[in-house]
Each structure stands twice: as structure tokens, then as C-alpha cells.
């Protein structure tokens, strides 16, 4: 049986995070960007839980952290989607490239 150490989890998390990062930067649809952000948040969670399991299993700090991260990202996604809807109502578009009213 193959032994799987923390490096594997970290590597997986890194790959997921990188994919999310690319999506957040590259996609123009606000919903897609939000999804990518979720992906990044989840990969962080994975990392934290894995490290906690390997390094400090009894204290479960990582799990507690992950719960809080979940709370925050849930809140964020709720607000983010609400924003997207609000913007959609105004501009009939969820393309990020059209949102540049802050342009200098």
C-alpha cells in the first residue's frame, strides 16, 4: 500500500489553488470568478486540515480553522452572489469587464 504523507495533500491543495487562481484571474463572468474563489478557499481548507491531522492531531486546530474558513466563505459567496444579482439588475450583464466605473 502506498503511504501518503502531508506533501501529497499539500501538493493537491496547491494544484487546486493554482487552478482556482487562474480561473479567478482569467474568467470574465462574475459567477465563474466566484466559483474559482470557492475552489481556492476549499483548497486552503484541505491544506489546513491535512497539516493539522499530521502535525497536531489532538488539538484539531486545523479543523476548527476550516470551520471558520467555511463560515467566512459561505458568507462571502452569499454576499458575492447577491452583489452579482444586484449588478445584473442594473446593467443586465455579469461580465466583469463591463464593470469599470471606478476607472481613473
Amino acid at each position, binding site marked *: 500500500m502506498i503511504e501518503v504523507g502531508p506533501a501529497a495533500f499539500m501538493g493537491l491543495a496547491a494544484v487546486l489553488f493554482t487552478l482556482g487562481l487562474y480561473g*479567478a*484571474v482569467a474568467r470574465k463572468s462574475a459567477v465563474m*470568478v466566484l466559483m474559482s474563489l470557492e475552489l481556492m478557499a476549499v483548497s486552503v481548507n484541505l491544506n489546513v486540515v491535512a497539516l493539522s491531522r499530521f502535525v497536531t492531531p489532538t488539538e484539531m486546530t486545523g479543523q476548527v480553522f476550516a470551520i471558520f474558513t467555511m463560515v467566512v466563505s459561505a458568507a462571502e459567496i452569499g454576499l458575492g452572489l447577491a452583489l452579482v444579482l444586484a449588478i445584473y439588475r442594473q446593467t443586465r450583464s455579469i461580465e466583469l469587464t463591463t464593470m469599470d*466605473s*471606478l*476607472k481613473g
Partner: protein
Amino acid sequence: MAYVALIPLLPALAFAVLAPLSRAVRNRMRWVGVAGVAGSLALSFAAFAAVWPGGDEGEATYRASASIASVGGVDLALGILLDPVSAVMLIVITVVAVCVQVYSLDYMRHEERIGWYYAVLSLFTAAMLALVLADNFLMLYMSWEVMGLCSYLLIGFWHEREEPRKASQKAFLTTRVGDVGFAIGLAVMYATTGSFAFDVVLGSAAGWAPGVATAVALLLLFGAMGKSAQVPLHVWLPDAMAGPTPASALIHAATMVAAGVYLVARALPIFEASGIALTVTMVIGATTALVGGLLALVQFDLKKVLAYSTISQLGYMFVAIGAGGAVAGMFHLVTHAFFKSLLFLGAGVIIHALHTQDMREMGGLGRRMPWTAATFGAGALALAGIAPFSGFWSKDEILYAVWKGHHYVVFALALAAAFVTAFYVARLWFRVFMGAPRTLAAFAGHADTDHGDEDHGGHDGGHDESAADRRGETRWPMVLLGVITAGIGFSAPFFSEFLGHAGHWPDPMIASVSMGVALAGLGAGWWVYGRRAGAVDTEAIKARFRPAYSALDAKIYFDAAYERLAIRPFIRVTESLAVFDRIVVDGVVNGAAVLWRTATDLSWGFDRRVIDGVVNGTARLSRSAGVALRRLQSGRVQTYQRYVLGALVLLMLLIVVKGA
């Protein structure tokens, strides 16, 4: 003796009361200024009495000090030092100040801002009194600068007109050129001794390295030259005559301009430690005395004649100190303060009466204004150096000191200056008071009507074109000063003893030479201007000495030289620096922004928008760089996201590399 501190504080308090008031209230409260100075006068006499009979040089009757800061273990203080020198100065300042303030009550009464005038005059008096009471150079310097401010404010009193405005600025800046030297001198002094106190600095001066002593002395002298209008920093004083005449009498004749002399006299041990500095002082003084006198010869503006004469007389005082006759210099300071302020007050009456300062439009005033003529005459004779008027005594002492010091060239220069002085005094006297009236105003005198009130600089309201004496507040100060001018000379030997030097009556030889030269000057003046109208064709003389005359007429090119060599180049430099700043220094910044923008475009993406951005960005390099800075702010979330992530990547790279 704590009341000594009140001497400068009373006028300062008057200023503090007057300054914040509204204009109308301030105008009504001008008596506060007079009261403050009068109080100072009374206290000064008390202080003088306490110092009497003086005699011990350097012995202070009273001292007190209050620390205003402690820096690195050194106390910087405002302190009072009452000794014979300061006691004498107190009397001179307060007497002249009271005279001027009383005189101004009438003279300035129709001015819209008379309250402000009184406030500034009070502040000035306070600063001057603080200066002579100071027990350290720092306080002296501070009062020195405050006086400069007051001088600025009073010269520019009628700032609606171009001339006073420019003159005030010129005065402030020119004296400040000197002050830069003064300030550096203070820094050197402090670096050497770790103190500003007279006791410490002057007491140790003899032991300084000669180079240091010379440096400090020359720097202080430079400051004194600015304030006391010595060549080549004299150019501001004639222009300063654009201010109200009583203010000129107090500030630009009697007190402030003499502060430089006072400074050099106070710092004498440093000058003595240097030696060379004394010689420099003397040479500058002698040059100034002669140049000032010569320039006074060609002026037609009554006040400017007096201004150049002041410059010349201040030069005399510097000669005295440089020649080792500090007491003579101080005595001349005292006598000059009285007779020159008297002359200015007289000039004020004339100017008010005739509404002109041009001597060519005057004449025959002697009969119309007997009081003015009499007091002015006393001052003029004192200035010319005719016994028994005060100027004779002090000038004699100076000549004596120069002769005793074997400075024969300077002696000759001083005599020449004395001759010129007497000559322009005669010119002034005969043009103004003798001969026939040359204008309607000078003609029409009816002594009993109410008098014209507007000064030349004021407004052309309905005034009464009459040439006559004034009464009351205007007249009595002049009479008082006239009496002092006539009598104070006899105190010469006692003055020396009061200051702790051996007193003596005039040396017959020197006295007769000086009298002779003065009389010769007066005689020559009479020959040219006085005998009868047109006896000597001044135009012919001018034509004869055309080059010399035109040089004098152009103020020996000092102003022109400054204008051409300093001011215009300075303005050109500042303007080109401003352009440099905008285009080069700022251009680098904006250029960096453009480059950065281009670089980010290049590395962060080749999608259509960005490629366009690169092209546009490159094109913009030649256009306004500001646009590029703005372009950094695209307003799009993801652009910012990229910046942030880029920075994050860099930061991580740093940590990883550092960790490895």
C-alpha cells in the same frame, strides 16, 4: 530692580493689546502705545539712575534671566543685562520713541490704520529695548529680527502703492542677507564656546584661535552691515524712506540702524581678538561714510538726502569702533540718534506742508516756518559738525580716536566725508529754507489756519495748501530734541567716564581741523547754493564732472549691479528650476509609471485589450505621462487582482529564496 524687565515688556504689552483689536477700536486705543512707551521712558530713567555714576566697564548693575529652552544640557535664555552701555541706549531709545509717538499723534491722525501704526511702533520699541538689554547673542538676534519685521511693516505702511511695497521687501531681504551671516556667526560661536551668553563668549574670546575669532567677528560684522546699511548692503535704506516720516525718524535714523553699531560695540572683544576684523570694520565704515555723503550730494528728495546722510554717519560710527574708539562710536550713536530724528521730524512737517519731498520745489520756508527752521537748523548744524552742537563733539572724538590709532588714510577719508557732509547740509538748508519759494504751496502760508494733514503718501483728500509750522504734539517733541541736540555735546567727557573710559575735552588741534573742514564745507555749500539764486550754475558743474555725476546719480550702480548680477539671474534660475522640476524630476516619475504600465501589460497578458494597451502605452510615452498613471487604474477588478497577486508572488519568491 525687576522693573527693568518691564522696560521692553510695556511696549510689547501695548502691541499685544492693540494687535488683536479691530481696526476701529485699535485706532481709538492708540494712546495705549504712547502710554507703554512713556512708561518705559520713566523706568529707563530709573534704571539709568540706578546705574549712575557707572564707570566700571563690563560691570552689570542688574542681571536676570529666564531659560526658554534647554538643549543638550545647555540653557538658552532670555536675559537682561543692565550696564552703562545699555542704560544709555535705553534713554536714547525711549526718548526718541516718545518724541516720535507724540509727534505721530498729530502727524498720522488722519491715517486709516493709525492704530496698526501705533501697534507696530510699540512692538518695534519693545524689540529695540530688548536688544539693548539682552545678555546673550541669541536674544539679541531674536530682537534684531523682530525689529526687521517692524521695519518691513512700517516701510510698507502705504502698501497700496508700488514704491513702499517694493521698498519694504527690499529692506527686509537686504538686511536678511546680513542676518544670514549673523546666524552663521552665532553657529560658529556656539560651536566654539557652547553658549550664547555675553559673559561666556566675550570672556573667552581672547583665547580663541585667531581664525575662529576673525570668522565670528566678520560674520557678525556682516550682519551689522545689513542692519546698519553699510556699503555694499546699504541699498535698502534710501528706499525705506517710502515709509511714514516719523517711523523713518525712529527706525531708520535713530535706533534700528544703529543696532549694528551696538552689536559690534558689544562684541568688541571678539573683534579685538581677531585684529583684522577691526581693520575691516574701519575700512568699511570709512568707505560708507564717504560714499553715503557723496550720494547725499546728488539727491533731490529731502528724505533721501537724510537717509544717505544716516548711512554716512553710521559709517562714521563703524570707523570709530574699528579704530579702537568704541566709546566715541557709541557717543556718536547717541548724538546722531537725537539730531537725525530731529531732522526727520522736521522733514515730516515740511513734507506735510508742501506735499512734496522734492527739494527743487521748496525754498524760502525759513520765514514761513520759524519753529521748524530753528529746530531743523540745530539738527543740521549738529550734523555738519559745528560746535557747540552735539555732532561736533562726537565727530571730534571719532577723529581723535582715528588719529591716535595712526590710521591716517582713514583720517583723511573721514575728513573728506565731514567736508561732504557739511556741503550737503548747506545745500539742503539753502534749497529748503532760504531763497524764494519755488511753488505755490511754499508761497501761500497762512500760519493760523488748520494745517494740511495728509502725508505725501496718503490720499489726496481736501487739504489745505499751506506751508506753516505745526503746533502741539508736533512741535514740542521737535523742540525737546532740538534742546538735547544743542546741549548734549557738553556731556562728552562724562559720557566716556560713565562707560568706564577716561574722559577728555576736545583736543584743540583735532577740534580746529574738524571745525575748519566743516566750516569750509558749509562755506562751499553757501557759495554754490546760498549766495543768490543762480550765482553758480549747478548744471555747468554737473556737465563738467559728467562721469562722476552720472555715477552718483545712478547710486554708484549698486542697485543696478544687484539687479543684474543677483536678482535677475536668481529669478531666471528659479524659473528654469521650476521647469526642470516639472519636466525632468517629475518626468522621471511619470516615465517610470509609463514603463511600469507597459511592463505589466507585457507580462500580464496578451489578450486583445492588453495588446492594445501596450501599443497605446508605447505611443503614450511621448504624450502626457499622466495618462499612463491613470491607466494603472483601469477600474476593473481583475486588473487590481493581478497587481495584488503579482505582488504576492514576488513576496513569496522572496520568502522561499530567503528560506533556501
